[in-house]
């Protein structure tokens, strides 16, 4: 069963996180979408998240062995992946909340 989730404000649009373009194309969430398109948005967000986390882990390993060239490289990657996690969790929470809200509506 699919239904339009048009009532959800785009997470990025309402709070101005336009910068996380690579993580989650927020306009897609704001538009009327069916469930399939949304799940693919979430899936691609997770992939991007994995990529940033892998990059951070690689730099952390270099930092551990003393090979890291600049400390700020690691700190930037660390912050990016932690923000990516928060973003994905935020999308998921909003989606679940919206779903529950709709399920509560009297038919």
């Amino acid at each position, binding site marked *: 069963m699919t239904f339009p989730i048009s009532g959800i404000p785009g997470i990025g649009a309402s709070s101005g996180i336009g910068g996380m373009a690579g993580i989650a194309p927020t306009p897609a969430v704001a538009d009327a979408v069916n469930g399939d398109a949304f799940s693919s948005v979430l899936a691609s967000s997770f992939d991007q998240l994995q990529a940033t986390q892998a990059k951070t882990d690689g730099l952390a390993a270099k*930092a551990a062995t*003393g*090979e*890291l*060239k*600049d*400390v*700020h490289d690691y*700190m*930037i990657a*660390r*912050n990016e992946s*932690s923000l990516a996690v928060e973003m994905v969790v935020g999308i998921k929470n909003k989606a679940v909340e919206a779903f529950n809200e709709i399920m509560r509506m009297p038919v």
Partner: protein
Amino acid sequence: MAIFDTFGISGSGLMTHRKWLDAVSDNIANVNTVRRTDEDAFQQRMVIAEAVEYGTGQGGVRVARAEFGDPEGRLVYQPDHALADDEGYVKYPDIDLGDQMTQMIMAQRGYQANLSVVERATAAYQAALQLGKG
């Protein structure tokens, strides 16, 4: 390239200038070291610095070698000296105290400069480690 490698670069600067200071203080300590005329005079020690990895600009400096001064020294007429030869001469080292003092000031200044770099680098690295915590 290693992490926090500014410390390595400045550390090499500190060590090299320290070795220079050691050589200069040794020269000054021996400015009046008398020898017989048939021996070599006390030779002043000079430290030759050389850049490490000159092309990259990130290698630092090292002491390439030490060079020694003139073994001829200068002859001074001191017939009462225990080491005086038949004509009353003894050999003093060919060390100019004024020159040594100038070198000491330069070595000191170089040492201080490298120390300031270490301090500034520490502050920068610490700020980087705080990224995202604000």
